[in-house]
């Protein structure tokens, strides 16, 4: 022990001396964290952060509850039996399948993998991944409430998501030749049975599991959003009125934040004073379709080249669609 003290004490004391000398030379007071925490910036950050989290909470809970109920009651066989053979009908079917599976994209990838394993064609699966998180009743309700004085945002969100997903689906059906899957899907049914009588506990169990799976993205996203808003909110205002730049910023933000589609409307609504409505539409439609977290999950199923092309294609279609919608709505 003695030798260790002798070995490390001089450099340690030397470093302390340097630090004290530095403080003396610069005569700066020691940084005081409590001053920052008491400042108005922090209070504003706290208010925005808590408000986004609390308002999104009911919807994320509803989402995980419905998804657990479906996971227990609706089997993949039922969906497969009603899958149409005609490609056009199949794409439309995949667009509205989200009505049956109102879950975020995080809950979607496992469902999709199972459906493809049971013979669903890849282009339909992709359409479902794109459309499902937006075109469902919970997302509509949360958007409608978040933009309570501008209900047209909710309708535009649904319409654009439908159009964009269908367009991407047709392009894939027309031009996709190679098998996009990473591995040929190995046999291995992940079905599990629940004990009789354990229905409520089954729902509660799945729900809390999914809540902890998805909630972290919401809380992180709310934190980053609150930080952006309270630190550079003013400079965002000038950017948000620009044409293409506001769309690109919102698309990038949606990709990085990776919010759940059931709750992202509240984040978007907090930007509504600074950004144009059509760029918020980009955020609301592109975010659930392609984002950081979704890319990671897509990569576990599809080849990376396919994921890259799909992401670029979708981003292009959605941004073009949102700008077009903005132009059209300004005509009337």
């Amino acid at each position: 022990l003695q030798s260790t003290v002798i070995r490390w004490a001089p450099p340690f004391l030397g470093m302390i001396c340097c630090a004290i000398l530095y403080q003396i030379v610069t005569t700066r007071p020691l940084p005081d964290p409590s001053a920052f925490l008491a400042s108005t910036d922090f209070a504003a950050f706290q208010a925005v952060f808590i408000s986004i989290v609390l308002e999104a909470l009911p919807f994320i809970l509803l989402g995980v509850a419905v998804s657990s109920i479906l996971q227990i009651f609706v089997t993949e066989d039922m969906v497969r039996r009603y899958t149409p053979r005609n490609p056009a009908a199949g794409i439309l079917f995949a667009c509205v399948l989200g009505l049956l599976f109102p879950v975020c994209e995080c809950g979607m990838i496992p469902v999709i993998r199972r459906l493809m394993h049971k013979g669903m064609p890849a282009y339909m699966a992709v359409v479902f991944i794109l459309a499902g998180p937006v075109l469902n009743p919970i997302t509509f309700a949360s958007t409608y409430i978040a933009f309570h004085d501008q209900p047209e945002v909710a309708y535009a969100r649904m319409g654009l998501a439908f159009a964009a997903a269908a367009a991407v689906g047709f392009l894939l059906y027309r031009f996709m030749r190679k098998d996009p899957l990473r591995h040929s899907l190995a046999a291995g049914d992940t079905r599990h049975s629940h004990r009789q009588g354990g229905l409520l506990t089954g729902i509660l169990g799945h729900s809390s599991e999914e809540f902890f799976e998805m909630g972290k993205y919401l809380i992180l996203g709310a934190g980053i959003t609150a930080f952006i808003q309270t630190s550079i909110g003013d400079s965002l205002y000038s950017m948000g009125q620009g044409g293409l730049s506001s769309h690109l910023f919102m698309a990038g933000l949606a990709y990085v934040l990776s919010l759940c589609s059931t709750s992202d409307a509240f984040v978007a609504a907090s930007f509504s004073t600074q950004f144009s409505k059509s760029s918020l539409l980009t955020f609301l439609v592109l975010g659930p379709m392609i984002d950081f977290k979704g890319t990671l999950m897509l990569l576990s199923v599809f080849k990376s080249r396919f994921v890259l092309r799909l992401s670029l294609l979708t981003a292009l279609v959605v941004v073009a669609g949102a700008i077009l919608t903005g132009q059209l709505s300004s005509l009337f």
Partner: protein
Amino acid sequence: MNRSRITHYVIRGIILTGFASYISFLSKTGRLPGYMEPRMLLPVKLSALVLTAMAVYQAYLALVTIRTGRQAACECEELPPLRLKAVIVYAVFALPVILGFWGS
């Protein structure tokens, strides 16, 4: 294995209780309307009830695991090992509750 499972249940139960009690704290002190628009009040209060139910269920899972020594939930459940990553995730969840109680 069981020990880490029980720790997960306990931490989750505490976090869920924290969210639920923060909402009821704001509601009791009349500060809830300051954070949201009026029509979200009822859903948020209801979600406090749901969170409480989920917290009770986590406590139940922990107790069953302690007493019988086997997992009570269905086998599809996957709990990550209690490493740094899991700790960070739980810290993220605790953040709004801590910030909320601290700021008020």
